[in-house]
């Protein structure tokens, strides 16, 4: 029916068309577009890989120090007079440990100094000695060498995380001080710095001509203020030494006729500014330490070869502690394990049953559609909402205990369920219909088809989804915080489904909130361990997925 002659003019002759400049431009543009698309993709991947690298590098850099710990090799005499062999756990280990440590520094006898010295050892060192004796009761009466952890500041000092001295003055104060420098009023004489300035001895500040009682502070401040554009500021008032007013007072007392006149005075600077003016630096001992003596003692220990840095098993076998050098993840790991166990036991059967019914049995109507949509939406609900639900329903309505792994697992299973259901349905769908037909064909009932054929074949896919769901649950923090699964658990002896517990992510959260310097690296280390678990779980999931692919 086509009229060939009518159509011909609209199509350009082939030879002209494909070779024309226009066509070539079009091809060039197409290639350029292809290349651009590739470049976008590569740069996106590059950016993602780079950010991931930065993340890992940061974590490793700040976290690796938590994997070893600073210890002192201490020779402890387990005095049988102090330790009862029948009840070794009852002895005064504080005294035993301290005495052994003080024996290293016989020259330190002052009580105050000894107290400062004892702070080198961790507060938990006593318990390490106690545990050692309880484990080796035969060593009572002999001299044993025990590795004891040092306290956090010395641990961090040894790892080079914190400095011995820090700047005494903030950069803002140094900038203020530089104003004086630029004015050229700073002078150094006899190892002391001065501000040379004119001070007006205001008669109004000399009440009733009483030179002794005159307000020299005010005079000095009036004069000094003129150097700065800002209003009264405590920051510049502290630049001058307290002796500055005394210097003026001395001049005026020596010559009472100066009242009402302007005199040139050399005002001394306070300690840190003095040092800044003379040496360009003002430092103080890091406030985490007592004094320079701390460093002398610690360096002495190091020189004697008593300081070692073994692998930090404490990170894995200890429970939480207020002292970072003793804090470990054992409590968090067991809490997370219990919660995940509950989560798995709840969400795996419920998820599979739901998916099986929806996929294989449910009639297709608006009710099942509604359920389906809601399950998919459930996956998008913020996890903190599940936490609130757990708080309102499991804790308040059901009266379950706070902070318990049981409740944590129940809340997490709410989050894991949609993942498992969606993955299970996908896995069931992926079982080829030919297998079902074959089973129906030999006369299997629906139940037999599901149990003997479809479910076993879908199982790797289901397990993949479950593991990914559990991995998500492992990293979930917010819902656990809401039900209080961030309890401080200093001992792992009392772990149970209904006992208060901690989870790995909430442990990270609480450590990241702690002021001690050691918790910074502990936090990074805990994140690394959490990531290691996640990577392992996902690797298992990938392995299972590949296994299902091998089947057909």
């Amino acid at each position, binding site marked *: 029916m086509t009229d060939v002659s009518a159509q011909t003019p609209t199509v350009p002759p082939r030879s002209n068309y494909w070779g024309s400049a226009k066509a070539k431009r079009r091809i060039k543009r197409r290639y350029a577009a292809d290349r651009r698309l590739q470049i976008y993709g590569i740069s996106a991947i590059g950016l993602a890989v780079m950010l991931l690298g930065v993340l890992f590098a940061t974590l490793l850099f700040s976290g690796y120090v938590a994997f070893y710990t600073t210890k002192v090799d201490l020779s402890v005499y387990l005095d049988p007079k102090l330790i009862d062999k029948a009840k070794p756990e009852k002895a005064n280990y504080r005294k035993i440990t301290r005495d052994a440590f003080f024996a290293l520094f016989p020259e330190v006898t002052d009580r105050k100094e000894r107290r400062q010295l004892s702070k080198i050892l961790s507060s938990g060192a006593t318990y390490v000695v106690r545990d050692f004796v309880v484990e080796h009761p035969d060593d009572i009466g002999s001299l044993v060498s025990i590795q004891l952890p040092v306290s956090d500041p010395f641990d961090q000092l040894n790892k080079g995380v914190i400095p011995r001295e820090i700047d005494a003055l903030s950069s803002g104060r140094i900038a203020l001080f530089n104003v004086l420098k630029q004015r050229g009023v700073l002078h150094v004489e006899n190892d002391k710095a001065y501000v040379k300035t004119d001070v007006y001895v205001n008669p109004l500040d000399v009440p009733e001509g009483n030179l002794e009682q005159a307000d020299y502070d005010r005079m000095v401040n009036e004069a000094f203020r003129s150097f700065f554009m800002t209003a009264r500021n405590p920051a510049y008032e502290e630049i001058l030494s307290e002796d500055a007013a005394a210097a003026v007072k001395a001049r005026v007392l020596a010559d009472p006729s100066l009242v009402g006149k302007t005199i040139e005075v050399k005002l001394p600077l306070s300690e840190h500014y003095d040092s800044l003016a003379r040496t360009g630096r003002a430092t103080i001992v890091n406030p985490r330490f007592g004094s320079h003596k701390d460093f002398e003692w610690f360096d002495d220990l190091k020189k004697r070869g008593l300081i070692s840095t073994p692998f930090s098993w404490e990170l894995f076998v200890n429970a939480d502690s207020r002292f970072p050098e003793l804090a470990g993840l054992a409590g968090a790991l067991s809490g997370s394990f219990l919660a995940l166990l509950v989560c798995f036991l709840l969400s795996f059967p419920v998820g599979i049953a739901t998916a099986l019914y929806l996929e294989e049995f449910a*009639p*297709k109507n608006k009710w099942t559609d509604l359920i389906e949509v809601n399950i998919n939406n459930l996956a998008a609900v913020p996890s903190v909402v599940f936490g609130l639900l757990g708080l309102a329903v499991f804790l308040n309505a059901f009266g379950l205990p706070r902070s318990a792994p049981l409740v944590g697992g129940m809340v997490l299973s709410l989050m894991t369920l949609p993942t498992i259901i969606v993955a299970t349905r996908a896995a069931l769908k992926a079982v*080829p219909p*030919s*297998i*079902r*037909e*074959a*089973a*129906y*064909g*030999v*006369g*299997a*009932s629906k139940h*037999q088809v599901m149990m*003997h*054929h479809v479910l076993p*074949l879908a199982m790797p896919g289901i397990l993949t989804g479950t593991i990914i769901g559990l991995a998500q649950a492992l990293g979930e923090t917010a819902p656990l915080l809401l039900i209080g699964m961030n309890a401080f658990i200093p001992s792992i002896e009392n772990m149970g489904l209904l006992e208060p517990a901690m989870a790995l992510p909430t442990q990270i959260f609480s450590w990241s909130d702690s002021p001690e310097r050691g918790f910074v690296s502990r936090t990074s280390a805990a994140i690394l361990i959490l990531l290691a678990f996640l990577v392992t779980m996902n690797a298992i999931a990938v392995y299972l997925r590949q296994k299902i692919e091998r*089947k*057909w």
Partner: protein
Amino acid sequence: MNDQTRPFEMAIGNSALAGMDSGNHPIKVTSRKVSVFYGNKQALFDINLDIPDHAVMSLIGPSGCGKSTFLRCLNRMNDTIPGCRVTGQILVDGEDIHRPDLDVVELRGRVGMVFQKPNPFPKSIFDNIAYGPRIHGLAASKTDLEEIVITSLEKAGLLQEVKERINEPGTGLSGGQQQRLCIARAIAVNPELILMDEPCSALDPIATAKVEELIDELKSNYCIVIVTHSMQQAARVSQRTAFFHLGELVEEGPTAEIFTNPKEKRTQDYITGRFG
């Protein structure tokens, strides 16, 4: 327009038609006014067809004509398709298979099925065949079960090829072997009727020949209904042939008659290659 009718003998060869028996056997399956609906769409229109026992009945016709749908009515496989509805009456040995008290699982035991694509379970050869007898409780003991498996493999002509690796996965066999495994699996539950839905369409000619040979042997014990696209195959294996077109049964009769002397113009056009 080429009006010259190509003689069918040239297409399939004289020899194939020579040995055919016209099929005078007792009726195994009777269908009366069978219609099938997929949702609102009607796929089959009032099919009336009698299928003889101890013979092979082939269903031919162009794609989408409803021959597979009709086949799947015979063991109520259409029940598993959502939205599918069957009306009319199908009698197997005079028994209505849509009777409410009839157990569909038992029916499928009596009516075995072999599918277009070989679909062994991803299990061992032994388990593939043993599955049916196991779920139907046909074997009283392990030795019984082994005997059933061996007999079925033998009947399917597969025993010699697989007896060394009976515990290896059935999916590891070649396509033709897999299809014969599926036939063995179907006969292991001792059915009366075997339905075959294009059993050779995924096989090469040599495997096809073996399966056809097997069908020919099985017909003495079973009633076989086979859907095929290949008219040569229909001519080779079947005693009676039914031609479906657009959901209707156009013509049914002894295979030799259908291919040499069709009564309907549509049948003639189809078997001579005018359409389809």
